[in-house]
């Protein structure tokens, strides 16, 4: 009896069919975040993608990098940009064909990682893995969309694993429990923004230590804070402030904060997600209608 109850509960929470508005919302948010990241690189397209920039020859990349992919000719840059926009448009506005969009985005993410290791970061890997899973994720349909909750769970688990692993490496192998000024040491240097400079001048040493320990508690405990319904709102609030803080204190790192924050929509209540999704769909439809009229 007890075993059957547990099996049913497990099936309900892992694979049961239910409303997956938050998953649809995540698909859109994750894609937009990727397009913004690529858009930032595309401010310097020739340096990034063509032989006009300096690129490392094969064997000279940092260990673990992909072998260098062929560079684009200058006429390939608009094609690359067009492919990004087309894929984003398919995901956002042609939900039925979204798998084509995800397939293309996975290939574009892979190309962005391989063409230039100097502009690829850990977030490239997360985008690549994310789009590959979205490509093969269980389907859904209807309004509000219904489908297997497994897709939601996989990405929730991905976020919690990232948090737990980053916390774990800070404590085990790292020295976040050995020194009290680790965050203070990272706030300095060439990532230091105007805001970080202000904090460096005004925040007392114990303030930096409080930030350091609260980050460890948040990251290591993330699987509990996000899964337990009672702590979830606080986890979301803390996490959002944490990533906003990183974006404000570290120049150019907003792209990472934005990527991680997109996972947060997966922890919204379904009703809220469905409302947001409806509103976004209306905005998208109006945009398309006005665009067609013009």
């Amino acid at each position, binding site marked *: 009896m007890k075993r059957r109850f547990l099996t049913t509960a497990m099936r309900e929470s892992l694979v049961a069919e239910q409303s997956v508005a938050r998953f649809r919302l995540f698909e859109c948010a994750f894609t937009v975040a990727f397009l913004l990241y690529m858009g930032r690189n595309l401010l310097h397209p020739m340096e990034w993608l063509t032989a006009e920039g300096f690129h490392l020859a094969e064997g000279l990349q940092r260990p673990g990098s992909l072998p260098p992919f062929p560079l684009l000719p200058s006429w390939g840059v608009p094609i690359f940009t067009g492919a990004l926009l087309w894929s984003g448009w398919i995901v956002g506005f042609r939900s039925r064909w979204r798998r084509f969009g995800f397939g293309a985005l996975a290939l574009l993410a892979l190309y962005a990682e391989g063409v230039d290791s100097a502009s690829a970061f850990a977030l490239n890997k997360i985008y690549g893995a994310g789009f590959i899973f979205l490509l093969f994720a269980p389907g859904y349909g209807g309004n509000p969309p219904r489908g297997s909750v497994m897709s939601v769970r996989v990405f929730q688990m991905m976020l919690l694993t990232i948090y737990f692993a980053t916390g774990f490496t800070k404590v085990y192998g790292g020295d976040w429990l050995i020194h009290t000024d680790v965050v203070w040491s990272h706030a300095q240097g060439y990532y230091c923004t105007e805001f970080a400079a202000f904090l*460096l*001048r005004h925040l007392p040493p114990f303030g930096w230590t409080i930030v350091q320990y609260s980050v460890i508690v948040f990251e290591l405990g993330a699987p509990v804070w996000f899964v337990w319904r009672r702590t979830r709102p606080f986890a979301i609030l803390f996490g959002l402030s944490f990533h906003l803080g990183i974006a404000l204190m570290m120049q*150019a790192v907003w792209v990472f904060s934005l990527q991680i924050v997109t996972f947060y929509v997966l922890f919204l209540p379904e009703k809220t997600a469905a409302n947001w999704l409806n509103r976004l769909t209306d905005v998208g439809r109006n945009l398309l209608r006005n665009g067609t009229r013009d």
Partner: protein
Amino acid sequence: MVNVRLAKITHLFTRRLDDWSWFEIQARLTGGGGQWVTLRLSDYSGMQNYGYLTRLDRILDEAGSRERGPRVRRDLARWLASVHARRFPESPTIRELRFLRVSAPVGAELLAQPSGHWVRPALEAVPVEWVREIAIVTDQEWNPRASSPGAR
């Protein structure tokens, strides 16, 4: 072992930093009287994706190994010389490049009490003990047909 694998995926700021370091590149130009002139890397790379530093800074920062470092610096020197000649046709050509690493200890006033966001300090403004010469690459190395150093 597990930790190493996890660190490869998520090695984000795991250790306290003792210093912040970056590279400076100086050039000796034809007819420059042997003077070293500091190049602004932002003149050659507009892609500022490494904090306030450029993509080229990241390449240099990650080319630290003994095997890869010399080859990366030689390739970069060749590229910088050719881009310099193309972008600044009025300027004398580059004959030698010197790669310096500046290591500023955390807590130094420049880093720990900044007056605003990070700005690469002028090489002349930092204490000499922070600066270490990594290598000099001559045009003989990136272009073997170039004239010998004595003829400059």
